[in-house]
């Protein structure tokens, strides 16, 4: 998965119409709630085999941080 596709997937996870970028602050997005965090966990697990814990989300501030976890 390339970075563009990653961003498209995040658009789907967040179910937002706002244009996303890697450096935007997730906490500014109203859609960044427990449901989208759960969907992120499933996304990282299914596509990258990466396990996420709840405390990981304390350090995830941007989409770039999620991309780093995914290793892309």
């Amino acid at each position, binding site marked *: 998965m390339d970075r563009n596709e990653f961003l498209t997937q995040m658009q789907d996870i967040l179910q937002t119409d706002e244009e996303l970028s890697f450096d935007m602050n997730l906490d500014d997005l109203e859609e960044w709630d427990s*449901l989208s965090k759960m969907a992120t966990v499933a996304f990282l*697990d299914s596509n990258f085999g990466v396990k996420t814990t709840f405390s990981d989300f304390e350090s995830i501030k941007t989409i770039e941080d999620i991309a780093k976890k995914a290793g892309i």
Partner: protein
Amino acid sequence: MAKSIFKNISIKGLSIVLGEEKRVFANEPEYYNNDEEQLAKLKKMIGFDTRYWSKPETTTADLCRQAAKNLLEKLNIDKNSVDAIISVTQTPDYYMPGNAHVIHRDLEFPKETAAFDMEFGCSGYVYGLWTAFMMINSGLKRVLLLTGDTLSKSANKKDRTEAPLFGDSGSATVIEYNENAGASYFMLKSDGNGIESMLQPAGAYRTPSTDETRKEIADKNGNIRSQENIYMNGFEIFNFTLSEQPKLMNEILEFSNTTKEDIDYFVLHQANVYIVETILKKAKIPLEKAPSKIFAKYGNQNSASIPSAICEDLRDKFNDRAKKVLMQGFGIGLSWGACVLDMKDTVCLQPEIYGGADEIQI
């Protein structure tokens, strides 16, 4: 390792009875601060729609008794031929004795019928079946398995992480010796380190009931519960589900020498639509082979969700050839288990409201 293979045992029939009060998610916007966008998202993603709660005076034993009575009558089974009653519940009528004795009394079973309870939640149907199969394997001819809960009574009504999820119901299953039945395979697992992920912290003997344990406290998200209400760390439970369930599904397929293609139906515990579909997607199971929307109709029915899914979605499927069915339950404990077995001429009763009455919509 808890793996078992049984021969000559089959499920003769199943039934399910629901609490008498229908709750409609759309009528409860207060759980989500009347935020319509959030409500729509939850309905779409998690599958919240309707569920059934029992009235304050209706208990798990009541629901299971009606399920048992309906099933035994339909199958024309003489109660003297039932060698044992197993009740699986976490919301019994009494701390002691167990619900199996309540049913034994109410349905007037003979003294020759053994009766006992097992304490399990969402994995309870598979654990109960496993126990029943072991008993038949050791010489019994017929076992009545009852599973069910009234978790709406443990959930705090002001806790949106619990109250909108649970539906109350009781199921009955008859398992019996059948010389024509093929092999059945079971695998059971547990992880006691997950006790804190889901529990009712107080009210039993480790932390007995006091004014303090009954005090309702708001957590950081504004959900209100006491220590005598059920608590679930949804995130931990979701992670557990995602990491362990597709894995167990593959293991039971391997153990039973079957492939995904051989299985006619995958019946998973109906935790919610999102969890079931996420497991199915990860395990690459086609959705048409697996009920996944039972939660939307009945809520999370704990140990009764698997029989409920069968009675709701698959009740006319077992009439011609034998169908291979994979069942899998997972939840509190942590505890999870799966089985692969054949179902043929299995009588599945249509879900019914307690009391046989029309539902009351709330």
